[in-house]
């Protein structure tokens, strides 16, 4: 499938990236080539195959007892500060 400049723009928006106008065409071409390469997967019939998201090895139950463990966090965690300056989160758009 060909990826158009409009697709690039749309996906960039989803990914919170900005793409300059002069980069759109090159990106659309590069991504099209990669996606066309990926489409060889369509030659395989995988309708009855289960997906593998993770090759599970011998993983211990990831939930531990609710006990206080050695802390590894930032030493800044308890720092006293009065104010944080943050970007504007409410806009009219």
């Amino acid at each position, binding site marked *: 499938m060909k*990826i158009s400049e409009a*697709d*690039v723009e749309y*996906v*960039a928006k*989803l*990914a*919170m*990236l*900005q*793409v300059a106008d002069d980069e759109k065409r090159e*990106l659309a071409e*590069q*991504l099209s*080539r*990669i*996606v066309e*390469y*990926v*489409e*060889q*997967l*369509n030659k*395989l019939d*995988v309708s009855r*195959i*289960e*997906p*593998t*998201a*993770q*090759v599970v*090895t*011998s*993983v*211990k139950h*990831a939930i*531990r007892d609710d006990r206080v*463990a050695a802390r*590894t*966090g*930032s*030493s*800044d965690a308890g720092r006293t500060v009065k104010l944080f*300056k943050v*970007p*504007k*989160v409410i*806009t009219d*758009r």
Partner: protein
Amino acid sequence: MNLKNITAEKLVSLYSNRGFTVTEVVTSTYQEIERIDKDIRAFITLCPLRALEEARRMDEQMASGEQVGPLAGVPVAIKDNIAIRDIQTTCGSRILEGYVPPYTATAVERLRRAGAIVIGKTNLDEFAMGSSTENSAFFVTRNPHDLDRVPGGSSGGSAASVASGTSVLALGSDTGGSVRTPASFCGVVGVKPTYGRVSRYGLVAFASSLDQIGTLSKSVRESAQMLEVICGFDHFDSTSADHAVDEFVKNLDRPIKGVRIGVPKEYFIGGIDPEVKSKIESGIHLYEGLGCDIQEISLPHTEYAIAAYYVIATAEASSNLARYDGVRYGIRKAGNSALQEMYRETRHSGFGKEVQRRILLGTYALSAGYYDAYYLKALKVRTLILRDFQQAFERVDIILTPTSPTVAFKIGEKTADPLSMYLSDLCTITCNLAGLPGISVPCGRNSQGLPIGLQLMANHFQESLMLRVAHQFEKAGGFSL
């Protein structure tokens, strides 16, 4: 002192015979870096004050006859996507500018407990995305065997440092071959353990279901020693494997007669350099001579591995890299504009081209309407690739392939065409998709003197056998075939 011809065991024995002090070795390592690393550029950050302080303490311990660890006083280099408290971690990216982690990765912590001394942090492709270390936001690392060529990637700095003698051992990370390819290109040993073997705590995530920390060294024995130290369960990593760590070093010299080695025909077709092919064939003959049972096998879905990998890896990356938004880490652009604009501008100016390309590709593969066609399909193909290996390991113990179809390529040769760079990962990515352990060992050089790598893969948690088979290859002269 150049460390090119000194192994970790040799160094440890020199210390115990009072041949050198740790302080002398660490000091001269930095002098050597000063002398040669301006051409190779393996390091992003050096930490001499800290290393010399640790060296001094180690010398005191040794002088007072205190028990020291198996890597006592050994200079190590750490890939700069592995966190060390109070030393900046860049991941080769502008977006992490100024980020200093408040904690240390488990693998580094364990190396330190074994006495190793961290010399510095090494260059990499930005967020480990690349096969040549050309995607670093800072500079290109050069191959010590030919400065016009790449060291391989993404752990190119770590491999180039070990190969040029500016560290004895190094840690890298391997998501699709990022330890094994640079090992092959730089003529050193590189191991990617079974998924979950080494804690990923402190390793900056690229593709979480594929990432694994690995080792680089000049000999198999040194990697075995390092792995004994860094492998094992860690409650800070929820995917850490709770599996006993064998005595890798002790087992190295056990005979390998009768070990069944499979050679998959799919790894020898199209695009493989004839000189690489011929050296790998010599390696196979060497194993025959050692009494191994060589069998031709088939891993029929190999041709789909790159396609599946680049969907899965980019999809996971697009999600993992969402955290770099100018709020939590590193740089922030347009701090006074609205939030979404700030996110976009920060990410646009902080990420390099390849990283942005992969985020776009991964986001596309996960987006509504394409999820089933790309991402889910790739996960199903991953199942087929895993099954290929499961079936093969019913017949053989080890699988032998080239590490890379070519020797180190010229700087700039593949940067214009991302797909051609992806295709160079052909031989290494199946290992990550299937979660298997893999090792690259030197297997002679081509007519221009450039190193060639031979790859061995084993079933899950069979590192001990894999290291033994690799060690016997080294002992039989395989490294200089």
